[in-house]
């Protein structure tokens, strides 16, 4: 009450005059724990979504390669899911899972699954048929055929899909703010709701972009490690 009466005596409200810089290192330092907590949630959601998405997408892609009748519906359905806006997706899932990060996770898995199944299928279809035949002629069973022939040959396409899915998922996680579990997106809307506090918004936005770029570089490194033959070919 006393604070209100003292500000009323002034010409303007204190808030009007308060500086609102775009970048403020002191915000980052003072709120480091909060930022780390949101960053942790963001990373956890992204990793889980991509790993679960890949775990579902791979069998689907293998099945779709085997039968043409399955490939059509799988690709058609994935296009439809891909088109559904994320806000609508989270809203659809919300009544089932409530105000938890599971809501966000399910939505993110759906999107990463859709990106991955396309790339996995494209990678598998890119494996030359005669190489597979040679493998079968050498007595490879289904598992060895996949492990020793399909996987190495399709790996570049697989990794490209994983990179796209990861970067997209990092960006998409922010929409989880709808149910309060948007990782760094919480900083973006949090700053917006805290009287357009720019430093907090910029921290969230820059954090998301940096996280996506770091994840992309890491996956590119993994790809390099996993495909030593590609390096030899380039040299």
């Amino acid at each position: 009450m006393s604070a209100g009466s003292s500000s009323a005596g002034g010409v303007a409200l204190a808030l009007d005059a308060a500086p609102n810089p775009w970048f403020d290192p002191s915000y980052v330092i003072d709120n480091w724990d909060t930022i780390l907590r949101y960053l942790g949630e963001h990373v956890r959601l992204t990793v889980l979504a991509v790993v679960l998405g890949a775990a579902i997408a791979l069998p689907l892609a293998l099945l779709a390669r085997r039968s043409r009748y399955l490939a059509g519906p799988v690709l058609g359905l994935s296009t439809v899911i891909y088109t559904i806006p994320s806000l609508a997706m989270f809203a659809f899932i919300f009544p089932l899972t409530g105000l938890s990060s599971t809501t966000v996770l399910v939505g993110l898995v759906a999107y990463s699954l859709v990106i991955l199944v396309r790339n996995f299928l494209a990678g598998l279809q890119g494996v030359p048929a005669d190489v597979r035949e040679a493998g079968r002629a050498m007595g490879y069973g289904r598992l060895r055929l996949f492990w020793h022939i399909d996987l190495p040959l399709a790996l570049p396409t697989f990794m490209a899909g994983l990179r796209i899915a990861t970067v997209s998922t990092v960006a998409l996680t922010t929409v989880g703010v709808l149910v309060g579990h948007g990782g760094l997106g919480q900083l973006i809307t949090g700053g917006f709701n805290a009287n357009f506090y720019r430093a907090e918004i910029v921290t969230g936005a820059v954090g998301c972009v940096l996280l996506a770029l770091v994840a992309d570089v890491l996956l590119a490194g993994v790809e390099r490690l996993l495909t030593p033959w590609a390096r030899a070919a380039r040299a």
Partner: protein
Amino acid sequence: MSAFGDAVVYLNDPFNWTRTNGILDLLRQHLAISVVAVLAALVLALPLGIALGTSGRGGGAVVVLSNVSRAIPTLALLTLFAVSPIGFGPRATTIALAVFAIPPILTNTYVGFRGVDADVREAARAMGMRRAQVIRRVDLPLALPLVMTGVRTAAVQVVATASLAALVAGGGLGRIVALGFGQQNYGQMIAGAILIAALALLTELALVLLTWAVTPGPRRFPFLQVRARAGTAEPEPTAAGMPL
């Protein structure tokens, strides 16, 4: 499951459609913002894509742009424009959406025009066509399928993303979802989600039909065409955009 039942009830109430700030108002807002954003992106990205594609330069920059744009959350850009001197409202939303519509159009235009067979171009020049003629009568028809893919991707993305504006006090159909959530009126929230999803799917459908109508060459009905090559998956193209 009662939330879905409530959603049907909400959608069946004519008052919810016709009142001020009802579904029709918000839909009009949503479409106006989306159309302006896509047109603005087209005006900027098409000439640039054509110039870069026909000269074959700047490919690296285009790829980097499309990759970086994927990493930027739309929500972040919407919020940043809203708290900038532009101020929040339809203008900030439109600018943010236009920025996001540029990379898909630019990349696909660039790839489309660069992919035109050099021999075809040379034949056109040998027939006495000038540069502008070559671009209009040779390059454009050949690049059109890819250009239209870019436009479709951008348009669907913009329509989908426009709903996020509601999270930062913007308008559009996302408002129904945000309000429904805020008021714990989950039927309304689901109804909004259904409307947004339907609008995105309809946009996709409309642009598939538009692509079919404007693409020269043998006409095949788009859906039959999809079935004909159903067996082959295409990997995500460079700037297919992210789901939004």
